[in-house]
């Protein structure tokens, strides 16, 4: 069993005990424990179930590479799924649940998948769920959805907060082991601004566990001294609990800092996402031990040899009373020696190599540990945890020679440098033929903005496995970087680590060499996603030669650990099956993040009202307090209508329309875009921007204009007012102000850069208030005008004037989007609420009422006015909408003209604007519904001949009305079209003129 030893544990404090709950069981740990070490201390070896077969899974590793021990921690608004037990700090009162099993961890019904595992080979999902098609939707998908995914998404809102942090440094060092610390101390002495980060909550990395010697002292002492002297320096920032998630172009690095352990029940700042721009980066991220692939290697109790060592040294936890070591290299012998010295049994070391060095074998045998060279594990015995190993010759097919009882298997297949960050931004890898691993190819570094390397790798991450070389590489690399940054060669006293040489590793990608198919189908490569040696071999047989394809077909390395343990073994097996070398097969692409990071950290403060700030007009608060029913319009909020007590929304809209057409309405039109275009070439410029002529517009007059894209399609519309000879005010749609301003600037700056024109977006400087209806003129006159003549002659339709209303400086436009007598009054934004209040007071006797966007929409549709985004969708040209009158025939050129001349833009079959009246006047056609002609195309689909673009009930006409685009529609007046509904019924409507109300315009010309 696994247990806590009575002594030892560098990272724990035995005087502070911590109680926690695991699956409802009360367990004990110590301050400094990770969740994983605490579970092992309580003999909780099984911690989860695998993804596909629901096989029992135990803790394999001690760090971020852990594939199995994913836990749900906390509850309610503090619930966090998929927390790695190996990197999660234990705290008092912690509540933890294991995942991916039903009903319990010990007894899981999903494990039946394992019994049928031969029916779930590689590519099973692709092969099985293709046919019959309907079964996917009704049968397979619901079942797979239920079974898929790890953990449960939290149901409550996360109560914690997260933030971003930005930093600029000369040198970023990722990894706080001996190489990283050596680099930091040299760089700091050279005066560089340094940030050094370490993902663990302690400095030193593996050197803490694998007690090494530096100069005349221990590695631990050296680390302590380095950190102590760095802490006194001003030009370095040392951060623990900070994981480098990704490296991006030009020295941009994303780092994730964990600030608290989650023990606080109240809201707290939980994590911080750092965005660092570094002139240079040193990656000193060490290496990850590789598992060995043998039958039964997924049983709880089979662990990485380095992890067994870590739990012993750092946490005083024994992973087993009897530990068998399986290895192909010298490093795992460290585990054997430490376990034995701690008084634990190590029955044997199974070494696949034919021999080991004399000194090592002497050292180990003197402790009473048997070495079995040239041997391998045939299979691990046990059902829910390790009970023993069956040993065979590595050279054979797995014939069992002897069986050894044990409760832990410590395996080592060698080490793989953590090259992820090097690779994120284009660093290439090379195959190290001596150590059988991929390491950074320093001749192909990721390049920065100046075309030179922006990132280098030092220490174990650079392929050095012996502490002597690791430390010296840390110094060497920092020297190079300091020289690159300062131009000076620094004087660095390079301290030395002392370590002997190790014997060569034997490449073992699965064992034994000639393992039978039966053994291979029990030999795991990817523990989380259940990918076995036999699956990768099957993929190769089926023709998957690319490692990227094999990965997706088998799901190897696609789990949340992203193949940190499985990748190299998997592609070695693939290369074996394909009979090509490992470097020729290559690796899959490494992508950020290195470790999963929470969505909360990614969102940062962009949550709730800060997620997307709302633009508010000056009247916003009044609208909010007076029954406004909000709807989003671009980034603005506008009132759909003003609802009164006891009134439905439909009733409110109808009341607003009827009142506006009979008395007077007031509208906050401030969201309208207002762009000032000024300069000697302003007229010439607007002639290019608009389809109609703007250069002949008289000062003091307005003109409705259309803007198209270079493709000819209608993009925006609005009224243009000529303020003076060289200046125009261009109104855009509410959603179009920024886009159109950008459009104008792009043309001015990139195409007509020598034209003398300036543009200015004044949208928020002026509020615009529309006073609309038969009594509009009386209302404004009542407010008191100064310097304005509102008579039909003084301010005719499509004219504007400047002056004062109620003492407020205004520009008043006589334009109409409703067909009524209408004035749009621009006032300085800060005066808008005052103006609005005064208008309501003066308007009382004229029964003025505010109206919302829906009344605006219905009134414009009654008049057949188009709306950008309703009647247009990016495929509609103005000619389709009967707007030929607004397209100049005289101008040589304007944006969109050439595109509109293309033959298919003149086709008779284009869908064109018409009105529709349903045969039953009470039926309102659904927005966007299609008309069909009764014929079918070659696919058996009904031919579509038109679609509804706007559809309303008109209280003015007391019937439904609609605008539509219909194939050759204007030539089909009075034809009755069929509009199928979703329920199979058909609505009939007759084509009519799109102007439903007051075609002569007598209402607005008064």
């Amino acid at each position, binding site marked *: 069993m696994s247990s806590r030893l009575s002594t030892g544990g560098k990272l724990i404090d035995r005087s502070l005990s911590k109680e926690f709950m695991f699956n409802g069981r009360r367990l004990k740990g110590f301050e400094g424990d990770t969740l994983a070490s605490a579970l092992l201390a309580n003999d909780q070896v099984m911690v989860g179930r695998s993804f596909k077969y629901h096989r029992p899974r135990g803790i394999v590793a001690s760090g971020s590479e852990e594939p199995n021990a994913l836990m749900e921690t906390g509850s309610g608004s503090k619930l966090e799924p998929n927390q790695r037990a190996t990197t999660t700090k234990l705290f008092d009162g912690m509540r933890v649940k294991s995942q991916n099993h039903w009903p319990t961890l010990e007894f899981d019904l999903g494990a039946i998948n394992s019994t049928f595992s031969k029916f779930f080979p590689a590519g099973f999902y692709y092969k099985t769920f293709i046919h019959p098609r309907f079964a996917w939707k009704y049968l397979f998908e619901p079942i797979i959805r239920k079974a898929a995914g790890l953990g449960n998404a939290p149901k409550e809102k996360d109560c914690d907060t997260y933030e971003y942090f930005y930093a600029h440094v000369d040198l970023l060092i990722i990894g706080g082991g001996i190489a990283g610390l050596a680099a930091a101390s040299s760089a700091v002495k050279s005066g560089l601004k340094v940030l050094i980060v370490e993902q663990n909550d302690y400095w030193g990395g593996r050197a803490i566990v694998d007690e090494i010697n530096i100069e005349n002292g221990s590695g631990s002492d050296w680390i302590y001294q380095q950190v102590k002297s760095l802490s006194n320096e001003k030009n370095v920032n040392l951060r623990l609990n900070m994981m480098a998630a990704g490296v991006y*172009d*030009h020295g941009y690095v994303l780092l994730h800092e964990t600030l608290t352990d989650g023990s606080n029940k109240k809201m707290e700042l939980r994590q911080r996402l750092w965005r660092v721009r570094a002139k240079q980066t040193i990656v000193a991220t060490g290496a990850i031990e590789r598992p060995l692939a043998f039958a039964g290697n997924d049983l709880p109790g089979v662990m990485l040899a380095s992890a067994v060592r870590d739990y012993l040294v750092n946490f005083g936890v024994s992973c087993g009373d009897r530990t068998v070591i399986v290895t192909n290299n010298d490093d795992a012998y460290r585990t054997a020696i430490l376990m034995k010295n701690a008084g634990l049994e190590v029955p044997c070391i199974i070494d696949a190599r034919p021999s080991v060095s004399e000194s090592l074998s002497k050292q180990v045998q003197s402790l009473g540990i048997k070495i079995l060279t040239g041997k391998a594990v045939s299979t691990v015995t046990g059902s829910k945890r390790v009970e023993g190993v069956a040993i065979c010759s590595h050279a054979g097919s797995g014939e069992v020679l002897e069986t050894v009882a044990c409760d832990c298997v410590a395996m080592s297949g060698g080490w793989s440098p953590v090259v992820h960050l090097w690779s994120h931004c284009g660093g290439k890898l090379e195959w190290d033929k001596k150590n059988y691993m991929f390491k950074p190819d320093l001749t192909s570094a990721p390049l*920065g903005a*100046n*075309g030179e390397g922006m990132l280098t790798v030092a220490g174990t991450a650079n392929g050095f496995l012996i502490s002597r070389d690791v430390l010296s590489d840390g110094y060497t690399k920092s020297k190079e970087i300091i020289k690159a940054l300062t131009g000076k060669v620094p004087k660095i006293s390079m301290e030395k680590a002392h370590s002997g040489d190790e014997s060569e590793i034997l490449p073992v990608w699965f064992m034994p060499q000639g393992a039978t198919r039966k053994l291979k189908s029990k030999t795991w490569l990817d523990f989380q996603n259940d990918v076995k040696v036999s699956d990768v071999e099957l993929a190769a047989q089926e023709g998957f030669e690319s490692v990227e394809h094999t990965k997706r077909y088998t799901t190897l390395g696609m789990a949340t650990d992203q193949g940190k343990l499985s990748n190299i073994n998997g592609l070695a097996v693939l290369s074996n099956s394909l009979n090509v070398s490992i470097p020729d097969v290559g690796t899959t692409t490494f992508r950020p993040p290195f470790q999963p990071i929470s969505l909360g950290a990614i969102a940062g403060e962009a949550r709730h009202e800060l997620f997307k700030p709302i633009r508010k007009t000056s009247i916003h608060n009044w609208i909010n307090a007076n029954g406004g029913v909000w709807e989003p319009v671009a980034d603005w909020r506008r009132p759909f209508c003003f609802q009164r007590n006891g009134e439905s929304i439909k009733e409110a809209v109808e009341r607003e329309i009827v009142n506006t057409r009979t008395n007077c309405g007031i509208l906050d039109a401030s969201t309208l875009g207002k762009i000032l275009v000024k300069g000697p070439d302003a007229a010439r410029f607007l002639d290019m921007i608009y389809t109609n002529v703007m250069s002949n517009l008289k000062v003091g007059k307005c003109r409705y204009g259309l803007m198209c894209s270079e*493709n000819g399609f209608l993009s925006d519309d609005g009224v243009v007012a000529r303020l003076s000879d060289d200046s125009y005010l261009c109104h855009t749609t509410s959603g179009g102000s920024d886009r159109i301003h*950008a459009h104008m600037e792009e043309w001015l700056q990139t195409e007509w850069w020598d034209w003398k024109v300036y543009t200015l977006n004044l949208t928020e400087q002026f509020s615009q208030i529309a006073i609309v209806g038969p009594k509009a003129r009386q209302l404004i006159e009542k407010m008191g005008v100064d310097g304005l003549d509102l008579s039909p002659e003084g301010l005719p339709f499509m004219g504007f004037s400047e002056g004062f209303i109620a003492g407020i400086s205004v520009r008043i436009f006589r334009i109409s989007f409703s067909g009524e007598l209408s004035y749009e009054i621009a006032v300085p934004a800060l005066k808008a609420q005052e103006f609005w209040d005064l208008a309501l007071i003066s308007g009382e006797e004229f029964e003025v009422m505010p109206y919302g966007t829906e009344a605006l929409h219905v009134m414009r549709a009654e008049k057949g006015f188009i709306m950008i985004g309703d009647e247009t969708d990016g495929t509609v040209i103005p000619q389709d909408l009967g707007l030929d009158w607004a397209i100049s025939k005289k101008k040589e050129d304007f944006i969109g003209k050439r595109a509109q*001349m293309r033959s298919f833009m003149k086709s008779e079959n284009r869908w064109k604007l018409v009105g529709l009246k349903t045969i039953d006047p009470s039926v309102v056609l659904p927005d966007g519904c299609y008309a069909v002609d009764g014929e079918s195309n070659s696919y058996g689909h009904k031919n579509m001949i038109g679609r509804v673009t706007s559809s309303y009930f008109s209280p003015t006409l007391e019937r439904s009305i609609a605008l539509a685009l219909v194939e050759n529609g204007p030539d089909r007046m009075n034809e009755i079209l069929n509009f199928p509904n979703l329920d199979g019924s058909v609505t009939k409507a007759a084509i009519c003129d799109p102007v439903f109300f007051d075609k002569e315009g007598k209402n607005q010309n008064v």
Partner: protein
Amino acid sequence: MLLINCPFCKERNETEFVYGGPVGVDRPDPNAVADQEWVDFLTLVPNPTGPVFEKWWHARGCGEWFVICRDTVTHEILESPDEKS
């Protein structure tokens, strides 16, 4: 995350900018080209590899359009506009 040199704002993050395509394609005289040539101009945007002069717009900044020379393979920025004020 490219670091782009705006002539007014100096080095800023890529996310502040909008890419405007390579320079060097002149807008043809609309009255002198056939339909197909016009469609090609609108739709066949060149996408070369290696050093390319390209337009960028400082959309979330000062609003300036300017030209840089960027290697589209290595992201090396070979030329930036002169500083303005």
